């Protein structure tokens, strides 16, 4: 039953570009997939392992910058750049995580903010990487898969973004059913108790961080190839880090589908309010956005998935 619903959902997602041929709905879907995949990645570290990072934009930016600089300065295919970005993000995540994981709770969260700000400042002042002005991905015509550029139709981007999201979900699914997944959740619940049962807490946290960073970096490369321009303001800001976890929190942290649900609700909301209400410089869309966040936090801290579960439990089992 549940499996059938998933298959229908997947088929609908696959058929979407054939039905909706206008750019805007496709753009909204691409953004849902992108933010969904970022939130899924964040959820591995924060939702399952309980380490609330507010600096994930660092990995996103590393993914975006690595592939973009490689293609702009050395002509390397963005696909290789994507891989290189993921590897680099993992290396950075381990270098940062090793010391920072000694901190807990708010101290950890604020340290990740500090790391994010430092990295953003470094990139703003790094002239070779474009500094504050940013870098363009050189336009290549005609479209080709090798160049990771599809200027004629958003459909290809659509399927790549969908692929990223499915990859993230597959990783999470696999994690849920394996030893590291159990260890991550044990650490989230009580890291001393976990250690007493033989869990190497520091190593497991680094493992969660590596997975999370790599998946986030993939999204960064995708973003750069989709918009063909990046600057530090766009890929490193604190607001992006927060948005990533917000999507996850709205949907429900520590659940497989929570981040996807969150993205499916929040992204269209913010895209459409921006189109309807934004552009006037009045930021009414952000007012609504802010109010919504407060509302979610106050009314339903376990997210939409938690809400659905509670409703499901209340109703009698459907036999």
């Amino acid at each position, binding site marked *: 039953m549940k499996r059938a619903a998933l298959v229908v959902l997947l088929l609908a997602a696959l058929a979407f570009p054939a039905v909706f041929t206008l750019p805007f709905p496709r753009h909204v879907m691409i953004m849902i997939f992108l933010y969904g995949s970022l939130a899924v990645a964040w959820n591995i570290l924060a939702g399952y392992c309980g380490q609330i990072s507010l600096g994930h934009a660092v990995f996103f930016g590393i993914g975006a910058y690595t592939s973009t600089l490689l293609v702009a300065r050395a002509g390397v295919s963005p696909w290789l750049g994507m891989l290189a970005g993921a590897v680099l993000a993992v290396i950075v995540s381990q270098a940062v995580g090793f010391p920072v994981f000694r901190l807990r709770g708010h101290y950890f969260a604020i340290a990740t903010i500090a790391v994010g700000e430092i990295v953003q400042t470094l990139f703003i002042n790094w002239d070779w990487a474009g500094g504050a002005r940013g870098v363009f991905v050189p336009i290549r015509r005609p479209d080709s898969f090798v160049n990771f550029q599809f200027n004629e139709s958003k459909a290809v981007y659509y399927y790549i973004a969908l692929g990223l999201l499915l990859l993230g979900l597959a990783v999470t699914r696999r994690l849920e059913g394996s030893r590291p997944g*159990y260890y991550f959740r*044990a650490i989230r*619940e009580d890291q001393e*108790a976990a250690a*007493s049962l033989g869990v190497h807490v520091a190593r497991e946290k680094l493992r969660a961080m590596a997975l999370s960073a790599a998946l986030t970096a993939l999204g960064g490369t995708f973003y750069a190839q989709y918009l063909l321009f990046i600057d530090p303001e766009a890929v490193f800001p604190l607001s992006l880090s927060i948005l990533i976890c917000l999507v996850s929190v709205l949907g429900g942290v520590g659940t497989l589908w929570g981040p996807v649900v969150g993205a499916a609700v929040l992204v269209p909301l913010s895209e459409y309010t921006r189109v309807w209400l934004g552009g006037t410089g009045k930021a009414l869309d952000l007012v609504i956005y802010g109010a919504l966040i407060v509302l979610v936090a106050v009314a339903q801290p376990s997210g939409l998935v938690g809400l659905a579960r509670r409703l499901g439990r209340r109703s009698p089992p459907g036999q």
Partner: protein
Amino acid sequence: MSLLTVSGLTKRFGGVIANRDVSFAVASGELVGVIGPNGAGKSTLFDLVTGFQRADAGRVTLDGADVTRLRPDEIARRGVARTFQKLRPFSDMTVLENVMVGAFLRTADVAAAREAAHHALTSVGLADRVDAHARGLSTGQRKRLELARALATRPRLLLLDEVTGGVDQATIPGLVRLVRELHAGGLALVVIEHNMRVIMELAQRIVALQLGEVIADAPPSEIVRNPRVIDAYLGQAWRP
């Protein structure tokens, strides 16, 4: 050779000395009780042995190998499991999942871990609650859960911090029987216990602590006659 040897362990917190020159040994298959008034340093002693705290001086050896500076997970891997005085279940996980975390120490395979967890839960009498969330259990059930979790790591030595603390009278005999069964199965245990009747019944030997120091180390029958122990502790609580 004894399984666990503690020699000269000392731990200070600021100006307070929690453990001073504590030494004792536990043989394979032995059941040793640890008693002492509140603040005598019993839980700190467990923390030192299991690597949760760093000793300022002294050594802990397991089968002759020095484990003083190892991390908690390394000590668990070497076959020492423990429970906590303040219960620490993984609240948001099911009973089975809680115990599987322990079982994963000996296998990476999920099915094998599930099997081992079922086995451990059956031995503590929680087999009917496997799918419940840990936070929904009673205190007595949580004690059993922590016990099962520790047992799932297949320890040679089990350190129990307060077997009967905080549970109602009716639950105590079951827990005591459980500990005795574990001991009968060949497991070595060190048990911190406030209930004197329970510890006198269970332990083969008792180590008494006061203000961080060992004041007696003898079989229960001698402990009840030791004047220092009576002074420090038994006098208030123990009426033979």
